[in-house]
């Protein structure tokens, strides 16, 4: 019995799209990355599932249109996340000014994460906790933890200084910790 063929890499699928207009190859890319892109956008939109899916759809359509601009130096997922962040920022700007700067009035983090958190935290708790974060904090946390970008990549993708990303991450962690611990029985 022949061994099952290994699934094609992202790069192979992208080349198939570019060279042969292979829609099925792009479909495989969508199936492969849809979960992460939609999760990232759900976190960015504070759990608005419908809006997140609309933005995710827009993200993949933009990726399809601009695939020729993809340089194979970066991971395809990183490139997709950048499009997703831009799409979210454009959408958010339509509704209100997105504030990605550091909120100087916010209390400084100053909290070390030494306290053990409960092992199981309901996703709904985390979603609610994420809602208290500022736009910038939520974007930084989503970029670094959900999109798995480095601080440098997150700074580039979000168009904010590296120091701001680090500050956002620190403050967001402190806020999340405080919020989740408050909800403990």
């Amino acid at each position, binding site marked *: 019995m022949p061994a099952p063929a290994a699934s094609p890499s992202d790069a192979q699928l992208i080349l198939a799209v570019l060279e042969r207009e292979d829609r099925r190859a792009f479909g495989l890319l969508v199936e492969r990355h849809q979960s*992460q892109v939609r999760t990232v956008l759900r976190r960015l939109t504070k759990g608005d599932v419908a809006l997140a899916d609309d933005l995710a759809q827009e993200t993949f359509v933009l990726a*399809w249109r601009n695939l020729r601009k993809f340089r194979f130096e970066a991971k395809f997922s990183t490139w997709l996340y950048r499009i997703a962040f831009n799409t979210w920022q454009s959408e958010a700007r339509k509704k209100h000014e997105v504030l990605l700067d550091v909120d100087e009035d916010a209390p400084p983090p100053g909290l070390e994460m030494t*306290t053990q958190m409960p092992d199981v935290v309901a996703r709904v708790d985390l979603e609610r906790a994420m809602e208290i974060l500022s736009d910038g904090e939520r974007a930084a946390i989503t970029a670094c933890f959900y999109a798995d970008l480095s601080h440098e990549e997150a700074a580039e993708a979000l168009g904010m200084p590296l120091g701001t990303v680090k500050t956002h991450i620190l403050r967001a962690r402190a806020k999340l910790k405080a919020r989740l611990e408050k909800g403990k029985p």
Partner: protein
Amino acid sequence: MNDIDRILRDDARIVLPDEGFAARVMATLPARPRTKPWLHSALVFGSALLGCVLAVAFAPAGASLLQGFADLAQLQARTPGALLAIAFCGALLASAVVLAIESD
């Protein structure tokens, strides 16, 4: 790694079921712009060539391209023909540089 990091990473690892999402995306994909790879190059090169032909056609009397190359061979760069030859080669070189940069 502290617990907040772990909670966030665990949450990020949860796989969302497709639920028809990929099919919806595929149904809305527009036709990709069909650009033939050689067309752009042909346009740049053709424009440069057309410019050269017009330059030759409207060159002052006595400015022949062949005479220009002959003048250049004799290190005479200030004759009308030599200037025409330099402009001709410059236009072709510029188009080659544009194509080389864009194909990078």
